[in-house]
């Protein structure tokens, strides 16, 4: 029964992956702008950034998806641009709000002596941000960014409501066709589990590469997670 619809599920996996990745990458870039905006002393930058985050964190993603698909995009473009554009946009905008907070917190966690040292060397604020603060802050952001990626993967299933061919939608179709619920939804659940597992591995790898030490590689670690990498210890 499931096997007959394997193409639907495979397509669902790709759609889910694509929505997640597009939303995530866009969400990080937009989130960086908004996160920096929330740190700005200029009121006309700070307040829009703050209200943005408040809105997208304070309303359900499902509502945002429907608003964007049925109201915002048709109003701007005069027609629907399809579920993918709407879905990816909604996920991106939503993800950006959460990432903005991660980025703001990450930057604020860097000792203010770092900025002072950079400024005292004659670096303008932007340059100091780029070369001194952000590189340090980014590695502290990796764990929460990882959580956000997994959350987004699961939340992407909400785009099913606008008839996106995502993974959950495949399950719904099959369930409808056979009027059976166990098999299709268990399949969907297992496939999501498989995807989150994949992402977890990627995140774990990234975290390890940018571990708590700033000294690159070949350094004795007190603890090693996962497979030992050889060398000393």
């Amino acid at each position, binding site marked *: 029964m499931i096997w007959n619809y394997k193409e639907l599920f495979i397509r669902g996996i790709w759609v889910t992956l694509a929505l997640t990745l597009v939303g995530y990458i866009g969400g990080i870039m937009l989130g960086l702008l908004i996160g920096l905006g929330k740190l700005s002393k200029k009121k006309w930058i700070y307040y829009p950034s703050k209200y943005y985050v408040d809105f997208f964190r304070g309303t359900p993603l499902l509502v945002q998806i429907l608003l964007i698909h049925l109201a915002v995009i048709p109003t701007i473009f005069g027609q629907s641009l399809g579920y993918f554009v709407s879905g990816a946009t909604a996920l991106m905008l939503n993800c950006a709000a959460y990432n903005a907070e991660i980025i703001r917190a990450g930057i604020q966690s860097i*000792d203010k*002596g*770092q900025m*002072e*040292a*950079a*400024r*005292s*060397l*004659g*670096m*303008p604020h932007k*340059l100091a941000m780029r*070369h*001194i603060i952000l*590189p*340090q802050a980014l*590695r502290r952001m990796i764990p929460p960014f990882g959580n956000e990626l997994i959350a987004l993967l699961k939340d992407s299933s909400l785009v099913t409501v606008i008839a996106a061919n995502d993974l959950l939608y495949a399950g719904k179709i099959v369930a409808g066709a056979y009027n059976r619920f166990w098999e299709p939804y268990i399949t969907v659940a297992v496939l999501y589990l498989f995807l989150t597992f994949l992402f977890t591995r990627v995140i774990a790898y990234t975290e390890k590469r940018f571990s708590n*030490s*700033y*000294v690159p590689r070949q350094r004795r670690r007190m603890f090693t997670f996962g497979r030992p990498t050889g060398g000393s210890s």
Partner: protein
Amino acid sequence: MIKIENLYKSFGDLEVLKGIDYEVKEKEVICVIGPSGSGKSTFLRCINLLEEITAGSVYIDGVKVNDPNTDINEVRKEVGMVFQQFNLFPHMNVLDNITISPRKVKGMNPTEAEELAIQLLEKVGLKDKAKAYPEQLSGGQMQRVAIARALAMQPKIMLFDEPTSALDPEMVKEVLDVMKQLAFEGMTMVVVTHEMGFAREVGDRIIFMDQGYIVEEGTPEDIFVHAKNERTKAFLSKVL
């Protein structure tokens, strides 16, 4: 070289500097002493505008630092600063810590910057640590790198805010020696310090600050031997 006129600084309602006038001449080494909370760091940080100035003015080489038309980054190129907590950039090795600013701010080419860095590392006795990361260094080594980093901008003035206070006793000397050498070479320096021996030996003039005022100022002899003010005497009797 540095002229401070009627400098006031408040943090909200807390008035920390209450009208400071002072002039630092070229090649002078000024040591600032005084009890904790007297405003020494704030005074130093107003010179390169790490703290916003509430009232009064600071001139460096005749340029008013707290003028809205002054490009503060230009001023800061001339004024190096060394912090109590070193504030090295932990994600860069020693060499990059030193070269980043000449490269990015002055547009110095990388080879030239590297040569300069090696030269400075030699001066502070850490040539073999060029590729080390800050976390692999001892406190004294970190502070010497921080001095080299500030010198890499080839400043005319160096500000030191308790550069040895965070160090284990056995590392204090190596940092003070570098500073002595710098003073000997004619660098204009303002040093906030609790090292009275250093102040006495290296300082051309000593400032005693208390409660936001310069209470007394003079040569090391004036202050350490013939202090006139009661507060100065009371402070010195505690620390000497």
